[in-house]
Each structure stands twice: as structure tokens, then as C-alpha cells.
């Protein structure tokens, strides 16, 4: 290896090479930060990075596993779940009054629109349940309202548009953590679906609903396969 002067003068340029340098990890701090920002904002650059990463992925086999200290996991849990509880600040989206209003309006609207009769909420128990479904980094924000008297579930997308090439599937996360499909979001307008008695019985305070992007027509396997677009916990109001 000799350093001919002309080598310095003819340094090859191009985004693809910067992407490769990012993946290799050779960039200096500021350059690396800049490249990291480009991954988030420039699709073409992110594609270069992904391709190089795939080429180098097999090197990762050569990292030898080393057992971390046992206490580390509880530190992680404390950071994630200890803080999360303290950081929860009430927002309009999570406020009870907002949901009561939305739920009432939604049921009323649905009744009027469908020309059907809805049994009014019983005053004493089993009031409507709501969930606000969202996910970090996802454009989708959906509200779900479940009426335990009629076992009807209504969902309305508040933010985000239906993807043209995917179906959005709604899942109830069962006690064992396995998602069970409740059905697909309608492509236009609010979704309204009857929930089968077996699933309706599981619809209670604290269970989680999630929406995933699945192939058109829904998951072919009956299990959630696509990315989670929105997720939220059901609350009785």
C-alpha cells in the first residue's frame, strides 16, 4: 500500500458511498450524525443504507455472545416502565370527557345514519368502552368505541389515510398475548362490526386493541403478520 498523491485527488464521490461509510461506521462524529439524519428524511439515501447493511449483515454472525450482568434487565424495565408511568400527562386524546362526548356522539350518529335503534346505555353498569389507538412514528390515530349492550364495535380513523395496497386489520390482544382478529377496517367511512360473543366476553377494561397493516383482504394466516399501525388499551367510561 503506497500513497500515490493522485489517489487523494481522485476520491470517488456519491451518496451510495456515504451510505456504505455510514454502515461500515467509519465516519467521524458530525458526519455520522448528518448521515443518520439523512436516513430519516431522504428515502433514496435510506435505500442505499439498507442495501449496504444487507450485504454486511452476515458479518454480524462473528460477534460472540457475552452474558450481560443480571441486574441490567431491571434497570431497563425501570427506565421504560417506571418513567413511563410518571411521564403520562393527560391530553385531550386521553381525557375522559372527550371520550364520553365522542362515544355518545358516535353512537347517536351511527344510530341516525343507519336508521336503526340503539338501546340506550344502562345507567348502572357495563357502560361503553373506548380505546384510542396510536403508535409512535405511525400516522394513524383511530378511536374505537365498544357498546357491551349490543356487542357492536365502531372504529373511526381520526388521523391518517387508508393505505391503498394493504388492509388494516383489528386485533384484540388475548390474555396469552396472542392477537385475535376482530375484522378489517372499512376502506371508507367509520367501521362498524358486531363482535362475536366469545370475543365480546373478553372485551373489558384493560385489554388491548391493535391495528396492523396486512395483505389486501386480511392476514392470510389468521395471525397478525404486518406492522402495528396503532394500538391502545380499552377503558370503560
Amino acid at each position, binding site marked *: *500500500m503506497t*500513497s500515490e498523491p493522485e*489517489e*487523494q485527488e*481522485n*476520491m*470517488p464521490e456519491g451518496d451510495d*458511498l456515504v451510505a*456504505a*461509510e455510514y*454502515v*461500515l*461506521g*467509519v*465516519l*467521524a*462524529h458530525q458526519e*455520522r450524525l448528518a448521515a*443518520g439524519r439523512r436516513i430519516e428524511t431522504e428515502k433514496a439515501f435510506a435505500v442505499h443504507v*439498507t442495501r449496504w*447493511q*444487507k*450485504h*454486511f*449483515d*452476515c*458479518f*454480524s*454472525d*462473528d*460477534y*460472540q*455472545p*457475552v*452474558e*450481560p*450482568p443480571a441486574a*441490567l*434487565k431491571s*434497570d*431497563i424495565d425501570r*427506565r*421504560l*416502565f417506571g418513567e413511563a408511568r410518571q411521564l403520562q400527562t393527560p391530553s385531550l386524546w386521553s381525557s375522559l370527557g372527550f371520550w364520553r362526548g365522542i362515544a355518545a356522539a358516535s353512537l347517536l350518529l351511527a344510530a341516525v345514519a343507519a336508521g336503526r335503534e340503539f338501546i340506550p346505555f344502562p345507567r348502572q353498569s357495563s357502560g361503553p368502552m373506548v380505546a384510542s389507538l396510536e*403508535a*409512535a412514528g*405511525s400516522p394513524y390515530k383511530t378511536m374505537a368505541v365498544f357498546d357491551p349492550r349490543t356487542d357492536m364495535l365502531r372504529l373511526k380513523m381520526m388521523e391518517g389515510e387508508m393505505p391503498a395496497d394493504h388492509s388494516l386489520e383489528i*386485533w384484540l*390482544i388475548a390474555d396469552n*398475548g396472542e*392477537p385475535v382478529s376482530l375484522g378489517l377496517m372499512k376502506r371508507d367511512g367509520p367501521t362498524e362490526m358486531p363482535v362475536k360473543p366469545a370475543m365480546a366476553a373478553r372485551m373489558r377494561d384493560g385489554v*388491548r386493541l*391493535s391495528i396492523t397493516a396486512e395483505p389486501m383482504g386480511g392476514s392470510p394466516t389468521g395471525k*397478525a*403478520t*404486518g*406492522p*402495528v*399501525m396503532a*394500538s391502545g388499551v380499552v377503558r370503560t367510561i
Partner: protein
Amino acid sequence: MHQGRQILETAPDDLSKLISRVAMRDRAAFDALYRATSAKLFGVCLRVLKDRGEAEDALQDVYVKIWNRADRFAVTDSSPISWLVAIARNHAIDLLRARRPVDDIEEAGEIAEPSPGPERNALAASEARRIDRCLEELDPPRADAVRGAYMNGESYEELAKRHGVPLNTMRTWLRRSLIKLRECLQR
């Protein structure tokens, strides 16, 4: 090697499922994912940072990221373990770059490069053969620079010092190597 076996025993499908459930905020799945992968990811952090305390802090950050970004996994076409290793490796390199004006190259040179692990799975093997074959087409020192940079998180600055050339010369060499590599990989 016990942990290596553990990763092998957790099939890629199972890891994918665990990550999907983590995206749905399933803490039991998060615990299981940690049990199956933390030794591998700690190995990555240690190899790059070469400091136990820093690697422990980094590993915490990495699992916080995994919890927060799990919903992104399904939109990538990476294998689950590649996706996880990339998060750990990128984070460790970020920390390394933020920490170090190059001071101590000897330290990095001492870390022996282990031979390819026996745990290499069949799926990765075809891709591995391809990149190894393409690296063989480069001059050996340049192939070593590429591999060393990837595995140890070496910067241009460190590589230049180690090879005794100016930084821009190192960069020119490496970029030319990458171009050759790209041509070979696209064949």
C-alpha cells in the same frame, strides 16, 4: 457459546413474532426477547466500545430503542437478528464517535478478530460467501480494513493512523474498495 445456542434455538420466525408482540406493548414478549438476544447484543456493544461499563449502559439504551421502535421492524425486510444487531451496533458506534477523539489505537489493535463463528446459519451463509468472495478480490490489507471497520467500529481516523497514511488517502482507498465491492456484489 451457551448464548449462541440459545439464539439458534430461537428460530427467526419466533424472534419476529416476539418483536411484533413487543410492538403491541407486550412486556412478557419483551422479557423473552431480552432473554434470547441480550448476550448477542451485549457482545456487539463490548466489541465496539471495548469498555464493560460503557457497553452495559449502551445495552440499556439499545433495549429501550427496541421497545420504542419494535413497530418499525415489520416494515423492514431484515431478519430479526440482523435488525437487532444493527440497532446495537449503530448505537455503540454512535457512542464511540461521540466519545473519542482518537487517542489510543493500540487498544483497538489488540482486539483479536475471531474466526467466523460456528453459529453462522445457513441463510446467512450464501450471502456471507458472496461478500467474502468479493472481499477476496480486494488487496488483503484493504479487505481487512473493510472488515475491521465493520466489526470493531474503527473510524477513518483510526484506520489512517494504523495504516500510516493521511486520512484523505485512507478515505480514497476505502471508497475505491467499496466501489469494487459494489461491482462484485451486483454481479
